[in-house]
């Protein structure tokens, strides 16, 4: 087991807020550069793609929390909600950029794009599925929904797969970058299949698991 120096409990709240603040840095700096004409070439596309790739990165980070706890006994679950919500906000900004800056709110064309173009349909489906997850990412909803909350939030697996697929299908040639994202998402999803057996095995061999250890 990796032993990280534990963060004192009194800083837990502040560290989550620091994550939110840090998480919005790429979007804010990208918007500033784009608005002031400092993004090279096709500024709107650059910004749109920046938001999309960060959305996918935050989704992946959200899905990493559980395997990190399983494999290394490091419990970062307090950051998972922030990572998930950052993913939601980046997808929302990605779609808004497409809608407002790229398409000038040309709704007939936007609707046609979503209906006709499979990669946009898949991306849009991912965004729609993220909405209920974002709306229920609070303590009240968790208490209120009980076990249904867990079932609902398993949608994130479908959303992450949709995100990786949307990215790969949007480019002219699927290259190493897209393959890496697909591989990482696949590995994280496959881990969910093996996880129950892995944890059972570890309970059997190592006795008490490293669950709940503060990092």
């Amino acid at each position: 087991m990796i032993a990280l120096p534990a963060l004192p409990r009194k800083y837990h709240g502040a560290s989550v807020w620091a994550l939110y603040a840090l998480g919005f840095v790429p979007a804010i700096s990208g918007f500033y550069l784009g608005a002031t004409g400092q993004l090279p070439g096709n500024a709107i596309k650059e910004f749109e793609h920046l938001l999309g790739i960060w959305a996918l990165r935050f989704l992946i980070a959200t899905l990493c929390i559980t395997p990190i706890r399983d494999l290394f006994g490091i419990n970062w679950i307090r950051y998972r909600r922030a990572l998930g919500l950052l993913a939601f906000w980046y997808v929302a900004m990605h779609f808004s950029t497409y809608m407002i800056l790229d398409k000038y709110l040309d709704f007939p064309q936007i609707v046609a794009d979503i209906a006709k173009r499979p990669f946009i349909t898949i991306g849009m489906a991912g965004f729609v599925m993220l909405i209920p997850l974002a709306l229920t990412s609070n303590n009240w909803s968790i208490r209120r929904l009980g076990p249904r909350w867990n079932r609902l939030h398993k949608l994130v697996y479908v959303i992450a797969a949709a995100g990786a697929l949307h990215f790969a299908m949007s480019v002219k040639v699927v290259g190493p970058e897209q393959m890496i994202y697909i591989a990482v998402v696949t590995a994280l999803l496959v881990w969910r299949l093996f996880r129950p057996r892995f944890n059972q095995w570890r309970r059997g061999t190592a006795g008490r698991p490293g669950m709940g250890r503060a990092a």
Partner: protein
Amino acid sequence: MTAYRPPRIAATEITPEPIFLNRRSFIGATAGGLLAAGASGSHAAELKAAASAFKLDEPTTPEKDVTNYNNFYEFGTGKADPAANSADFKPTPWTIKVEGMVSKPREFGLEDLLAMPLEERTYRMRCVEAWSMVIPWIGFPLASLLDKVEPLGSAKYVAFETVVRPEQMPGQSGYFQPLPWPYVEGLRLDEARHPLTILSVGLYGRTLPNQNGAPVRLVVPWKYGFKGIKSIVKITLTDKQPPTTWNLSAANEYGFYANVNPAVDHPRWSQATENRIGEGGFFGGSRRDTLPFNGYGEEVASLYAGMDLAANF
């Protein structure tokens, strides 16, 4: 007694009047451009060309965008890759082999190409990815090169081929190859002979930077940009429609003709509008309608009379 005649001044020596009248801003722009060229590390050198009738009312795309936002997969698939990865490419010496169905097959050295009557032509460039630029090319009609090799009556198409140099073009080496090499393109012979079709050897008053297809590339302004094959080493006259790289890669997305057509969508995006590069970041109002044949319909539509342009996209 014979009258004294002053020696004739070559057309290329005469400064066009609008440039003369605006000489101060011209000198400023040239100095700025030279600094930019020095900074970007390209091999571009001054190149003289006569003014031509091919001008546009639209402002030209800033040179920094023309030379830093490129699709040239031989140097990588990112838009900034060609400018970043092409410094080791050697565009001189260079020869183009012209062969196939011609009476006089021959090789042209770069010096032969630079000795052709060069003109500056400002054309719109519409990428298949729904963005566009306005670029002051320097070049000469492809037809004048074809005339020198005398195509046979049986020739119907012109095939083009890009150089393969994995040691100088990082996109051509390594595990991941985005496209099969060499990059190949083709035109119907009448398209190739059309006065708008040029071989370009320069832009913005200088020889082509490596990232723009040095030392010689094709420019066909009414077609999507990927038809403008770069760093050409071979031209073959043939009677069969030649294979073209993007068509081989995805036949349902990229056709042989690839004429700019706002009415025929790419399967993954609309071609109805385009984003003009270099117009002031997010709020420059750069989204504009795409024109049939990229605005050159008057000159070229007749080439396709009676053809179904949705089927022959």
